[in-house]
Structure formats: structure tokens, C-alpha cells
């Protein structure tokens, strides 16, 4: 018989590597794409992502639970290598934890430290301070334009509008250096004067004669603040627009400032939730990888333990007597050397065992031949003597032959009958077939057999008070023969009569239940010299016995995977114990 180990390892490893690649790809895509554009992800997409992040670990978890169930089942059934597998698995998981737990702790503490660094005291206050300063500066400029444009001084300065606009512009600049442009419109919206930075120039039509501060206008990198006020000059209404240009990049910097403040404000507001979500994210990414490492552990465990399990299985089979078992290995490692040595050892053991069995067979046959020769020789002597006597009387006194002929011939016939019986029983013993198993009531069988002996001898009493009706799978005919032989011996052992007590009990040996049948007689017992040979074929203490009765009993019980032994005390009696398996395996 050959044992071919399962070899799914390369395929399994390939599948796991593929899963790992998919997992890493998912993580990369997830982090690069989805996280980068989370603002566009709607609730439905969130749900899909969430479900995906739950389903993948669940699938891996399901596979692991399935593998665990298989492993526990293997352990329960005491499959070879299962204990080693569990220990290896625990070892690998432990190693995974050793490597992942510090990493997890490091990551979480790094996240905490980073968030703590971002939110360290003063940064948000500093940003708010910077914003306040910027706002103050900005509002100062706006107020300054408003105050200046609506002041009497401005009205006075505008009087040069017709005579000398350049002088008016110089005076305005002298009076307020923040003003970078001035633009005068008449009541009809026609531009009268413009002086200063051309970027500040504006069409009056868009103003709609509204006085006050105009909204800030952004032109390329510049931001312009304006104020419009009406003035009565020379009996007419004029609109003056004074403008100031903010420092280049002010608007962009102010925007950056408000955005930074927004970021910090949000971080401050949601930091607890953010920390939890980060930890959850970490778990979502790391947990499947951890599960994958457990799956790899299963595979490696299987890979490592398989040759050892095969060897264990092989030793078990050898112990059961199967020497044809061989372990095959495809690997080229140290274990393969061990397997080769083991196979060589098995081959040699098998060869030696065959020789031993052969020798035992020869010895057994020699022994049986000697016993048989002895048993045959015994009746030959009276046969020969009877025949010689007939011849002698016939030769000397033929007229008296009538007197000895009948007893001599009767003696010859008797001895031939004995020989015939001897050979008949020998043939039966040699040809004893295997048991034909069927469900039977052992108590009923015992009573049926006992009934015969009860009729034969009135002095024998049977006690069945402790005999239960237990159902067993056994050969009914052979069981009858067992009890017939035992009862026959018991009756012989009690010539003056006595009691035969048959009782049953359930006993447990290792993990199996057995039905124990006790057959006790209160006969003369078996002396010490005879006890060793009780089950030996052709050993008998009876004059008319063949010596095969108990040998047949032992053989039948052995064929039923059972056992038999006895306890005896001279003058007290003998008890035979028969143990038959409750769940008889099919032979």
C-alpha cells in the first residue's frame, strides 16, 4: 500500500499571494484615490466602501473559522499530526502578534503624537491672532479711505479739479499716503479726472451712484479697496472714488490664513472622533493582513506537519501490522532523508517479519503434527493389539475365535471412531470460517445453549439473575459454539453437579465499550500446571477429549476483536471472562 500525501501547498500559496496582492492593491487604490477625493464621495459610496471593508475581512475570517473547525475535528479524531499542527499554528499566530502588536501600538502612538503636535497649544490662537491683525489692518485701510474721502479736507482738495488736477493729486497724496488713486465723475457719470495706479480705474456705470465702501476687487495678484463719496463743488455734484491697493499677495495670504484656521478649527473640534476613525482605519487595513498571516500560518503549519503526520500515520499502521505502508515525499529536505530511512527500515522490518511468520508457521505446524501424530498413535496401539490378538487366536485356536472376535473388533471400531472424531474436529478447527456478523441478543443466546445442558444434567443449575439482554453484532452460530464449549467444560468439571452462573456487564477500555460476559462454575478448578495450556490446541485433561474446545473458543473471540481470560482456584471453581466490543467493526 502506498500513501500519497495531499499536496495543495503551491496552489494554496499562490492563492494567498494573489489575495495579498489584491489586498495591497486595494489599500493603495483606497488611500490614493478614494481618500484623496473624499469630498466627492457621497453617502452611498461611503456605504459601499464600508461594506467592502467589512466583507473582505469577513470572508477571510470565514475561511479561518472553517480551517479551525477542520483542525479541531482532526484533533478530536486524533488524526496524526493534529496536535503538532495546533502547536505550530499557535506559534505562528503568536509570532504574528509579536510583530503586529508593537507595530500597531507604534502607529497609534504616532498618530496621537502627530495630532497632539498639530494641536499643540498656541498654534490656533496664533492663527486667530494673525487673522485679527490682518482684519485690523484691512479695516484700518477701509476706514481710512472712508474718513478721508468724506472729509472736508478732501472737498477742499477737490477744488483744484479744474484748474490743476495734478496739483490736486499731489495734495491728496501728501494728505493721505494710503490713497493710490483718485477718480472723479460728474453727475452724468463722465470721468473728469483720474490720477494714480491704472489698475484701480473703474467704470462709473457699475457703481450706480451708491456712496460708501465698494466691495474689494481682485485684479490678477492685486486687491483694490475703493470708497465713493459725493461732493458739491461749484454748484454741481461730483463723485470722488479713492482707491488703495493692498500689499501684493495679501488676498492669497489672507485666504491661506483663513483656510489654515479652518483646518485647525476642524481638527480641534473633531480630534477625538478623528483619532477613533484613524484607529478604525488602521484596523480595517491591518486586520485583513493579520487574518491573511493566520491563513499563511495554516498553510505553513500544514506544510511542516504533513511529513511528520505521515510518519506518525505510518508508525501507527506498522503498529497495526501493516508493513506494506510507505511514506512518499516530494521535498528534498532533511525530512525526506528521514522518510527514506523510515521506508528502508519498514522494508527490512517487513522482510524480517515475513521470515518470522514463516518460522512461526513451521513451528506451529511441527507442533500440531507432533501432537496429531501423538493423538493418532495412541489409538493405533489398541487397534494393533486387537488385530494381533485376532490373528493369534485364529492361528492357534480358530474354534475359540468367536470368544474374542467381538470385543477385539469393537475395540478396533471404537478406536477408529475416536480417530475419525479427532480428524473431524481437527478439520473443523482448521477450517473455522470468519464470523458472519449480525445483531443478536447475547443473553438469549446464552439461555438457548444452557437449555440443552440443563436437559442433559439435572444436577447442574444455571443462574442468569445477572444476565442482561445486550444487543451485539456477532456471529450467532459461533457464539453458540463458544458457550457450548464453556458449559461443556463446566459440566465436566462438576461431576457431582453444581451451579453455572452467567452474568453480563459493560466495561470501558480506552475509548471503546465492551460487553463482558462472565461464566463461572463451582467445579474443581484448574491446577497451576495446566493453566498455561488451557487454550493450547490438542491439550486436554479429559480421557475422551480432543483438546480443541477452548482453542476454538479463543479463536472465535479473537476473530470478533474480543478477548478471553480466566480466573481459577482449585476446589472453588473457574470463571471465564469474555470481552466483546459493543460496536463491532465490519470484518
Amino acid at each position: 500500500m502506498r500513501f500519497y500525501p495531499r499536496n495543495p501547498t503551491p496552489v494554496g500559496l499562490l492563492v494567498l499571494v494573489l489575495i495579498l496582492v489584491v489586498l495591497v492593491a486595494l489599500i493603495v487604490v483606497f488611500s490614493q484615490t478614494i481618500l484623496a477625493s473624499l469630498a466627492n464621495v457621497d453617502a452611498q459610496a461611503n456605504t459601499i466602501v464600508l461594506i467592502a471593508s467589512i466583507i473582505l475581512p469577513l470572508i477571510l475570517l470565514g475561511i479561518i473559522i472553517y480551517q479551525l473547525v477542520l483542525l479541531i475535528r482532526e484533533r478530536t479524531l486524533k488524526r496524526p499530526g493534529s496536535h503538532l499542527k495546533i502547536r505550530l499554528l499557535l506559534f505562528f499566530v503568536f509570532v504574528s502578534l509579536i510583530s503586529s502588536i508593537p507595530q500597531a501600538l507604534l502607529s497609534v502612538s504616532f498618530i496621537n503624537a502627530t495630532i497632539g503636535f498639530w494641536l499643540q497649544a498656541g498654534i490656533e490662537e496664533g492663527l486667530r491672532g494673525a487673522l485679527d491683525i490682518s482684519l485690523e489692518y484691512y479695516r484700518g485701510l477701509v476706514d481710512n479711505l472712508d474718513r478721508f474721502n468724506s472729509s472736508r479736507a478732501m472737498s477742499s482738495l477737490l477744488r483744484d479739479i479744474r484748474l490743476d488736477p495734478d496739483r490736486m493729486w499731489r495734495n491728496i497724496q501728501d494728505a493721505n499716503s494710503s490713497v493710490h488713486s483718485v477718480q472723479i465723475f460728474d453727475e452724468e457719470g463722465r470721468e473728469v479726472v483720474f490720477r494714480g495706479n491704472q489698475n484701480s480705474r473703474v467704470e462709473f456705470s457699475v457703481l450706480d451712484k451708491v456712496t460708501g465702501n465698494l466691495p474689494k476687487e481682485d485684479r490678477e495678484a492685486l486687491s483694490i479697496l475703493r470708497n465713493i463719496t459725493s461732493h458739491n463743488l461749484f454748484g454741481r455734484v461730483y463723485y470722488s472714488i479713492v482707491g488703495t491697493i493692498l500689499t501684493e499677495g495679501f488676498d492669497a495670504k489672507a485666504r491661506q490664513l483663513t483656510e489654515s484656521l479652518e483646518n485647525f478649527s476642524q481638527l480641534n473640534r473633531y480630534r477625538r472622533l478623528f483619532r477613533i476613525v484613524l484607529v478604525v482605519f488602521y484596523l480595517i487595513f491591518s486586520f485583513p493582513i493579520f487574518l491573511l498571516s493566520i491563513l499563511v500560518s495554516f498553510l505553513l503549519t500544514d506544510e511542516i506537519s504533513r511529513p511528520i503526520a505521515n510518519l506518525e500515520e505510518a508508525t501507527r499502521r506498522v503498529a497495526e501490522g501493516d508493513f506494506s505502508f510507505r511514506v512518499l515525499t516530494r521535498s528534498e529536505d532533511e525530512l525526506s532523508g528521514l522518510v527514506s530511512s523510515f521506508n528502508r527500515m519498514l522494508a527490512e522490518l517487513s522482510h524480517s517479519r515475513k521470515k518470522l511468520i514463516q518460522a512461526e508457521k513451521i513451528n506451529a505446524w511441527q507442533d500440531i503434527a507432533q501432537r496429531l501424530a501423538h493423538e493418532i498413535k495412541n489409538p493405533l496401539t489398541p487397534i494393533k493389539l486387537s488385530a494381533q490378538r485376532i490373528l493369534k487366536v485364529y492361528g492357534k485356536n480358530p474354534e475359540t475365535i468367536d470368544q474374542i472376535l467381538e470385543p477385539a473388533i469393537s475395540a478396533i471400531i471404537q478406536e477408529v471412531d475416536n480417530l475419525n472424531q479427532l480428524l473431524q474436529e481437527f478439520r473443523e478447527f482448521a477450517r473455522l470460517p470468519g464470523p458472519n456478523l449480525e445483531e443478536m441478543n447475547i443473553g438469549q443466546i446464552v439461555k438457548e445453549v444452557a437449555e440443552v445442558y440443563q436437559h442433559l444434567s439435572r444436577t447442574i443449575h444455571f443462574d442468569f439473575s445477572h444476565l442482561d439482554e445486550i444487543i451485539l453484532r456477532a456471529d450467532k452460530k459461533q457464539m453458540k459454539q463458544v458457550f457450548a464449549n464453556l458449559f461443556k467444560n463446566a459440566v465436566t468439571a462438576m461431576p457431582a453437579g453444581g451451579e453455572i452462573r452467567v452474568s453480563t456487564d459493560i466495561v470501558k477500555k480506552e475509548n471503546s465499550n465492551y460487553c463482558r460476559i462472565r461464566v463461572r462454575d463451582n467445579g474443581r478448578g484448574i491446577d497451576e500446571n495446566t493453566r498455561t495450556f488451557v487454550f493450547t490446541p490438542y491439550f486436554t485433561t479429559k480421557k475422551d477429549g480432543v483438546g480443541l474446545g477452548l482453542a476454538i473458543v479463543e479463536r472465535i473471540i479473537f476473530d470478533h476483536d474480543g478477548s478471553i481470560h480466566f480466573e481459577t482456584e482449585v476446589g472453588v471453581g473457574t470463571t471465564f471472562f469474555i470481552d466483546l466490543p459493543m460496536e463491532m467493526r465490519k470484518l
Partner: protein
Amino acid sequence: MADRMFLVLFCLVIGSFPVCADTVSLDAARVGDLLEVSITLKGGDAEQVIASIQDGLKSEIVFQARLYERNWGLFSFLGDRLFVERKVVQVAYFDFFEDMYVVESELKGTRKYEQREEFMRDFFQLADLRLQDMRDLKREPGSYYILARIRLDPVRLVPPLNIISLFYSSAVTPWQEIQIPGHPEPKL
């Protein structure tokens, strides 16, 4: 600790399936050959939005409108066909320099408001959204209908905080359905 963690995770998972008490007011009009819709959020938490933007944060509202073509007959179990979908995002914040409320959207650019009421009205409303050229609707009247819903985030989360929204997003209104003008509801 484990119980608390579980509770937080449970809340996050439950939070990803939002339920909203707000409703959508949906109107559709045919302007020439164009089908225009106006979507308004009713019952939106204005105070939360104002508090958020005056704290220097930004609020976001997403208007989503879909035009469906009914799938009748043998293959109706497959569901109706999505004919066209428009999604408009409006972001609101407060401009501290100009003391003005600002609403930005790709569709309508940047709008500034001095008055809070005017700002809220415009922020919660998307008027005259051009959804579809009616000439492309070849099927019989009653074959088309419009669905709309609104998602309001009083605080628009910035990266990397927006990963929170993977587990917890703001409430989304239920879909509101109307028939398109000139296409009466079919008699079933």
C-alpha cells in the same frame, strides 16, 4: 474599553446610513426647449450653518437631480432608466474681511451677501438648474419623471479629517419625485 470601542464602531456604522427629517421642495418648468428644475431644502438647520461659518468653517450643500425614463413592460423589474443626472455643490463661508456671506458653486460662481436671510435663502436653494433639452425626450407623456435630493454638511470636512465622512456623513433627504411639465402621471 472594548464595549466603548464597539459602541463607537456601531454608531459609525449606523451613521453611514443617514436618515434626515428635512425635505426637498422640487419644481420643474419648461423654459423654451429646456427643462429646468428648482430644488429647495425645507427645514435645513440654518442656525447650525451660520454658527459653523461664523466660526471660520465652511458649509456644503449638494443638490442632486435625476431624470428617469420609466421602464414599462416585460423588463420593468430591471428598474427605470437613468436619463440624466446633475449634481451641484455649493460651498458657503463667511468673509471676515468684507463682513459678507459667500456662496461658491461651479454653476453660479461666487456670490456675496450682506444680509443673512438672503444668504440662507440662496444657499438652501438651487434655482433654474438646466436639466435636459426637452427635444431629446422622445417617449410619450408620462414616461419621464424627476427625482431630487439634498445633502447638507453644516461643516465641510477638510482633508485628512474628511475620512470621518466614510463612516459618518451628514443627513441626506429622501428622494423627491415630480412629473416633468407637460408629461402627466401615467394611469396604472
